[in-house]
């Protein structure tokens, strides 16, 4: 039921909404989260962000996360798209859509999906600063506690 993709290309949010809803009228609410590249890290401007992943594991890990959401909420479908490669400030990184008969399930499932994606799917970000220096982003405790609140 989940539509899961890892790609270098950008995604079209409107087209993904349309695909999720195509041919059905039982959806009462759609939750959407879009993660984008912020132009600042640790108070310094960045030039680019590079996303690396573990290809053999990534889509399986994303499918497990989607399956966990489908067990917890009454979902009619969800979409997880994560970009990899070199991205520029302002560009899209990740799209999460969750469709449900009801608003609260759609919103909660969307929050759950992005929190778990950030802590359980094998992606790594590297930031390139204006002076050319590169640094791997370190995992932060706030992401862990955001993921942990779902139990």
């Amino acid at each position, binding site marked *: 039921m989940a539509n899961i993709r890892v790609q270098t290309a950008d995604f079209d949010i409107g087209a993904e909404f349309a695909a999720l809803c195509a041919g059905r009228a039982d959806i009462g609410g759609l939750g959407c989260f879009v*993660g984008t590249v912020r132009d600042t890290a640790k108070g310094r401007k960045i030039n680019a962000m590079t*996303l*690396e*992943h*573990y290809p*053999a*594991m990534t889509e*399986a*890990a994303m499918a497990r996360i989607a399956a966990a959401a489908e067990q917890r909420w009454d979902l009619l479908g969800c979409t997880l798209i*994560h970009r990899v490669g070199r991205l520029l400030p302002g560009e899209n*990184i*990740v799209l999460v859509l969750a469709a449900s008969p009801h608003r609260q399930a759609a919103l909660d499932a969307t929050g759950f999906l*992005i929190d778990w*994606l*950030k*802590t*359980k*799917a*094998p*992606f*790594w*970000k*590297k930031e390139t600063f204006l002076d050319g220096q590169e640094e*791997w*982003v*370190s*995992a932060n405790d706030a*992401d862990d506690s955001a993921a942990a609140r779902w139990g």
Partner: protein
Amino acid sequence: MRNVKMLYFAWLRERIGVAEEDLAVPDGVITIADLIAWLRLRSAGHLAAFTTTTSLRCAVNQDFATPETLIATGDEIAFFPPVTGG
């Protein structure tokens, strides 16, 4: 000896200098914790990558593993830092 395929990601890959390597692991190396201790001896790069284990994560055959996970012939064993996607 057991043959395994190692994969390294992010700064582990950069410190070790290769993205993957095929290794024959001695019989005394039984768990992932044993493997880390053994890998530290392979090169200065490996030592630098595996100096601390608090910021280390492992997957065996594409599923998250723990220090106690057992190693088997043919395993694909990946080491990487805590994930930072999303």
